């Protein structure tokens, strides 16, 4: 069952990714991205990372892709059409990358198994993650620093964007 | 006056700082400060000359204190008979050079600051007894010289400056390589002060420092480790001298440099190369230097410089270029004399460094005077100046005669000593070197004839004789040329013990 789930989600992610990269219509690409991100979320679930999977769906599928679609729709139609030929060169690179991932994956799986790593659903992780984030001896500092990061980047993004308006005016 | 040497080295810095805060426009004040700032070290080095006790062997006025403990670098100064005359000559030439620079109108502030910085570097090199300190001072001279030629030079100044810079830098990189190699060998043996020249000389000449700890059997690519160090030091200094075939930067630098800088370049900077050869190559590696093949190579190089320099000088049509090539020829005597390891040869070499310092400096000042008035330096373009500028002709005659080695002139004594000293060891080379003297006499007399004698070139019938300021810069040098020709013992006495200990070291 687990194997089936893995194969299903993995192919969803892979096919979605390929479709997104190579589809000439950018709107279709965006929808393919939704499939790919869903596939990744599914992979998280099969690995027992329920919180991560849920966050993936909420943030990426729900939030970011919708934003992307808005951006695509608001931009002009010409920009939405991209010739596939320009990306033909990418094919061998993608192939090499795939081969590389397969090789490392093959070597990695036995190690994770031997280390007793979970390849099946175990128990809910949300609470654990929450505790780790608030534990001063665990990951409290990175969590807080990420808050600073978001703040600073927000300010930066606004500054850059606002001056964009001034230029247009 | 325990810190006399430090005062001599660093007193120009005070003037430099003072000039730094002067407004750019007040040229007269800047010149006055510069003259004062070069007068102080001149005065101090005169005191040094008289206080130096020539009956005591070894280093005097020693100042020694730790500088960088991590590497065992010391602030280690001291002088012996070899360096005293050169320090005094530096003080004199920089002082006169400052006066000769009063005619410069462009960027006076920067010019004077660089000149003072140059003096710090030169005196530092002559007084350093620590290789690291020596190297730092050596490089301190590099940048001021680059800018002095590159900014205030003639039409092709940029080319001349970069050529000078690259040649000298190549030499100093080789020198640095030698210093590092010595340091690695010495510190590997646990020497506490692996840069100190006296300590290293002692270790090397007693055979305790061989580089065995770094390379197998002390051999590197078929040569002893120390021999490599000797060679890189030698090439480094030979570029500065310059020894043929490293001499090509010199004519360009001289021709493009402004007159005072040519004076300092010929008068002192070239001596740094031969001083390095005497102090480091001969003083630190006497066994290697006295190997017959090495010594003979040195003598041959000196001879080539003498003869080749003289021939090329004769072929020049540019007055300044001629003087520059005659410098190549004259510096050859130093190398030839130093390679003979006889008392006369070494004394001649050391004295030639001083006498050439005075006579070549005088000649460049003379060329400068002609150029200031005529705005060209073609030897053929003058003629009969003796009739309109008698004082000028008189001083020129002294300078030229000193350069060609006329008896009763200083050049005669030193060149004769070199030839005699060489004759005792290499009679063949000594007799060829005499050819050099003959050619030198020929081209100098010929130049005299073309410039000063014969019918007056009508263009120059208003040629002004030398001004008092020019006389002030040239007369002391002319006086010295005669003085040391008549009373060479003043100079030789100072150097005697230093030369004698060097000779014993080499003939041990």
């Amino acid at each position, binding site marked *: 069952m687990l194997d089936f789930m893995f194969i299903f989600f993995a192919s969803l992610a892979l096919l979605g990714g390929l479709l997104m990269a190579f589809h000439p219509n950018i709107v279709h690409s965006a929808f393919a991205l939704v499939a790919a991100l869903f596939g990744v979320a599914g992979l998280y679930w099969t690995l027992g990372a329920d919180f991560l999977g849920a966050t993936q769906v909420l943030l990426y599928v729900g939030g970011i892709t919708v934003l992307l679609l808005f951006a695509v729709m608001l931009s002009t139609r010409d920009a939405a059409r991209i010739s596939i030929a320009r990306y033909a060169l990418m094919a061998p690179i993608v192939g090499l990358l795939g081969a*590389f991932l397969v*090789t*490392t994956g*093959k*070597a*990695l799986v036995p*190690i*994770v198994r031997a*280390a007793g*790593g979970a390849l099946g659903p175990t128990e809910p992780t949300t609470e654990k993650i929450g505790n780790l984030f608030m534990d*001063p*001896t*665990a*990951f*409290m*500092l*990175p969590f807080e*620093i*990420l808050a*600073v*990061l978001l*703040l*600073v*980047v927000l*300010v*930066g*993004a606004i*500054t*850059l964007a606002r*001056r*964009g308006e001034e*230029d247009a005016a | 006056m325990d810190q006399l040497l430090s005062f001599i080295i660093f007193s120009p810095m005070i003037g430099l700082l003072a000039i730094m805060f002067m407004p*750019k426009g007040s040229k007269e004040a800047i010149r006055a400060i510069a003259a004062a700032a070069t007068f102080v070290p001149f005065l101090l080095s005169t005191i040094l000359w008289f206080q130096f006790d020539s009956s005591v062997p070894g280093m005097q006025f020693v100042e020694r204190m730790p500088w*960088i*403990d*991590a590497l065992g670098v010391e602030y280690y100064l001291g002088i012996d008979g070899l360096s005293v005359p050169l320090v005094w000559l530096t003080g004199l030439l920089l002082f006169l050079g400052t006066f000769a620079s009063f005619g410069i109108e*462009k*960027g006076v*502030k*920067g010019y004077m600051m660089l000149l003072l910085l140059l003096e710090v570097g030169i005196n530092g090199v002559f007084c350093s007894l620590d290789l690291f300190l020596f*190297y*730092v001072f050596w*490089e*301190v001279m*590099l*940048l001021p010289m680059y*800018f002095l030629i*590159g*900014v205030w030079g003639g039409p092709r*100044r*940029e080319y001349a*400056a*970069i050529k000078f*810079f*690259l040649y000298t*830098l*190549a030499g100093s*990189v080789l020198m640095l390589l030698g210093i*590092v190699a010595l340091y*690695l060998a010495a510190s590997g043996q646990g020497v506490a002060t692996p840069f100190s020249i006296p300590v290293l000389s002692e270790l090397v000449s007693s055979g305790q420092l061989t580089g065995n700890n770094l390379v197998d059997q002390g051999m590197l690519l078929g040569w002893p480790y120390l021999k490599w160090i000797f060679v890189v030091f030698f090439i480094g200094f030979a570029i500065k001298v310059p020894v043929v075939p490293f001499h090509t930067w010199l004519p360009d630098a001289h021709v493009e440099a402004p007159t005072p800088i040519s004076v300092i370049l010929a008068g002192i900077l070239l001596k740094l190369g031969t001083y390095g050869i005497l102090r480091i190559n001969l003083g630190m590696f006497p066994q290697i230097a006295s190997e017959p093949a090495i010594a003979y190579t040195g003598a041959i190089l000196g001879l080539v410089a003498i003869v080749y320099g003289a021939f090329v000088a004769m072929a020049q049509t540019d007055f300044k270029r001629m003087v520059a090539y005659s410098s190549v020829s004259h510096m050859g005597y130093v190398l030839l004399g130093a390679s003979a390891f006889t008392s006369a040869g070494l004394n001649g070499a050391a004295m030639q460094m001083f006498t050439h310092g005075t006579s070549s400096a005088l000649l460049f000042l003379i060329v400068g005077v002609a150029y200031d008035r005529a705005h060209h330096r073609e030897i053929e373009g003058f003629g009969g100046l003796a009739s309109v500028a008698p004082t000028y002709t008189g001083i020129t005659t002294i300078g030229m005669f000193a350069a060609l080695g006329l008896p009763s002139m200083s050049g005669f004594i030193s060149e004769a000593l070199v030839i005699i000293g060489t004759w005792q060891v290499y009679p063949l080379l000594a007799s060829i070197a005499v050819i050099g003297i003959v050619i030198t006499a020929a081209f100098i007399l010929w130049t005299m004839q073309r410039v000063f004698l014969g019918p007056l070139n009508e263009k120059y019938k208003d040629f002004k004789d030398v001004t008092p300021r020019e006389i002030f810069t040239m007369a002391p040098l002319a006086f010295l040329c005669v003085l040391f020709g008549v009373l060479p013992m003043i100079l030789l006495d100072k150097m005697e013990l230093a030369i004698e200990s060097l000779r014993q070291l080499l003939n041990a």
Partner: protein
Amino acid sequence: MSETLASHLTALKPEIWLTGTILVMLVLDLLVGKRSARTVGVFGLIGIGGAMWALMNQSSVPVRAFGLISIDTYSIFFRALIISATGIVMLHGMVFRGIEDETRAEFGPMLVGAALGACLLVSTDNLIMLLVGMELLSLCSYVMAGWQKKERRSAEAGLKYLVYGAMASGLMLFGFSLLYGLSGSMWMPEIALAVSEAWSLGDAGQHMIVVIASTLVFVGFGFKISAFPFHFWAPDVYEGSPTPVTSMLAVASKTAGFGVLIRFVDTVYLDLTIAEDWLGRFGYVIAVLAAITMTYGNVTAVKQNNIKRLLAYSSIAHAGYLLMGVAVMTTATVDNRAAVGIGMESILFYLVSYYIATLGAFGCAMAFANRFGAETLEDYEGLGWSSPWIGACFIIFLTSLVGLPPAIGLIGKWLLFKATLSVGLDWLAVIAALNAAVALFYYFKIARALFLRGDTDYQEGLASKGVIPGLAHLSLIVLAIFTVYFGLMWDGIMEWVSEAVM
């Protein structure tokens, strides 16, 4: 619990100062309005000064904070460089003509944010914290690089930096995940154990994981230090970014990159149990990369005409010199770990010399751009006569970058060469020496343009009067004095460096 929290926070005082500075600057920006952007900057400077003060008061006894950060002499050394560089860049940013006044106030928080990220980056030995620190540094840098949006080059620089940077962090993250898969830990010492075990006991597949993970991690670090072949972003980004940002990237960001790289190499690979044959190969690759990086940087710099671009390539070359030290470190064996100390010491010292001279050189470039709009070698002709002080400072910085006495750069090169020779990497030392000669050539193109070319007449430029521009100019002169002073009296720096070497 609260007591431990307090002790954790005490250990992070400089970082708290920096965070506070960001917040104060943002709030002040709202309160005082756009007209007094400089007030915000002054508060930023005060905050950075506070951070520096807190840092200097940290004891040299190692402390661990939050289980992720180790406050030791090593991290104090790197943070001192980063924070002080940020202060100088902040000062220069306040007078830079090119950042419009209405956005000057927002620029400060970005800069301090980058410094905060860099400080955390060099202090941590946990991969999660490392990643967060690096992202904070990178994201702030991306924004700053594209700050002059009206300038096409700046916008391009920001975008280019973002694209390459995101790819580099992605690859590095993948390397981290492989290391995590190997060891089950994010903590470097535990990863070290797992790596050496995988190498000595594992099969070919495990070896491959170690190699691939190391390569990917090195992509991330190599990007930050702009080592070949991850340097492609550097020239365009350095040229396009506002000059203060360029000097931040060239100094603080690169210093942080080396800080984390050395700690990673030291902790993960130079652990006592590491397999020597693996280390030998890794070290060989680093040595070759060092040689290519410096040669590429120097040779390409010769052809440059734009000063910032020239300095960018020179900064690539200096990354190559610094990598020499890393190569020296990797020659250590289980029995003889002396090479680690020698290599690290030489890198740290070289970083100090690079820091002073590069900050100064970019500062001078900025001063000339401000006053005369000069950017290329042709523009520079004769400018030394119009601003003799800045021109003379520029010469001193260039002297140091070449490695001529009496500047501190000579000592840095001396120590690096000595380290390289002492472990038998002679060929690398020879290549580096040849590179120094090439470097001389292009650095002196600037000197030549400033003083030898053009007429010596005074050229009228935009005068910049006031306290802050005066301070900015003064900072250059102080840096120039440091360059010479520490070139002659470097015992103190040497002691500080040896203390910092763990």
